[in-house]
């Protein structure tokens, strides 16, 4: 699965954008800036999904994360944030010892993960068939796809395969996920209501403290 040419160039652009936007998400002082940097990180990762041939997931990522979850985050920031951070007198990180300990932990994690990825991938390459065979097989698979209207590329069948698998191979988890979403909707409505709304639902006098 090697990318080449412009794909490689865009891979590095979007990879660096995702990582820098992720770092700025964690380091921004204002929570709204954090949310905006997180949106750019998510969009960059969606572009990486397109490069990896998962167009459907990239679209879902943009629609659900950027269009849904991040808007929810921004709403809650507006509701909750009283502007203590913008004044600049509040510390945004934990105390020094906790930050130092967690950064040491993170650097150990970086070292361990990079070592494991390199070691594991070089082992994986030994098991695989040689790259020329794989390239030939890939070209044969590409031949079976329909040519697009502009005749410069081929139409991928990724969305079709994901949809078919979601309703056959993963039908039960799909239904369970719908129940999970229903539970999440009801739960967040229950959690976010005010005391007054709670008393109204339970048919109590809001001024009386509950026994």
């Amino acid at each position: 699965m090697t990318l080449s040419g412009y794909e490689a160039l865009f891979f590095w652009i979007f990879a660096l954008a995702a990582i820098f936007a992720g770092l700025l998400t964690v380091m921004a002082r204002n929570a709204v800036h954090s949310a905006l940097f997180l949106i750019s990180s998510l969009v960059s990762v969606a572009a990486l999904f397109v490069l990896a041939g998962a167009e459907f997931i990239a679209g879902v990522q943009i629609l659900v994360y950027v269009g849904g979850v991040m808007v929810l985050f921004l709403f809650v920031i507006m509701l909750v944030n009283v502007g203590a951070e913008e004044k600049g007198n509040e510390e945004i990180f934990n105390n020094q010892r906790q930050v130092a300990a967690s950064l040491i932990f993170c650097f150990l994690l970086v070292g361990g993960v990079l070592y494991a990825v390199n070691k594991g991938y070089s082992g994986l390459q030994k098991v695989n068939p040689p790259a020329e065979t794989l390239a030939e097989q890939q070209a044969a698979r590409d031949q079976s796809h329909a040519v697009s209207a502009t005749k410069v590329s081929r139409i991928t069948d990724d969305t079709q395969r994901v949809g078919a698998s979601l309703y056959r191979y993963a039908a039960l988890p799909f239904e369970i996920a719908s129940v999970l979403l229903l539970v999440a909707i009801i739960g967040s409505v229950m959690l976010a209501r005010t005391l007054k709304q709670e008393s109204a639902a339970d048919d109590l006098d809001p001024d009386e403290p509950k026994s």
Partner: protein
Amino acid sequence: MLNSFIPILALFQAAEGGRWAQTWQAASHPDLSKFLVIGALLFIIGVAGVLTRRNIIVIFMSIELILNAANLNFIAFSRYLTSIGNVNAVAGQIFAVFVIVVAAAEAAIGLGIVIALYRNKETIWVDEIDLLKW
């Protein structure tokens, strides 16, 4: 022992097929391992955010970053398994869909809890939310 020094010696080799040429070759053809490294770095940035920040909303955003890094790994492995001809490779993308569903549910519940907490405690700093601490 000598083997571990050979890459360092090769650094000084500017000839064709030297270490720089190999590095350029690897960088201009990103493969599975590059995707995994990017995913790992995003994951670790998210972990650092969860461990160091005081604002509970930014902690939630870091959790989203972590889940997204896991998705990147799923997609990269799906692509890799497709390229070696595995017929079930699309399972990685299915898993990514479910991760996105769970992330959305988690964000909705978590932000509901944040609003309820803010209503009762008037704070979003996690070190001041210590009702369960004894």
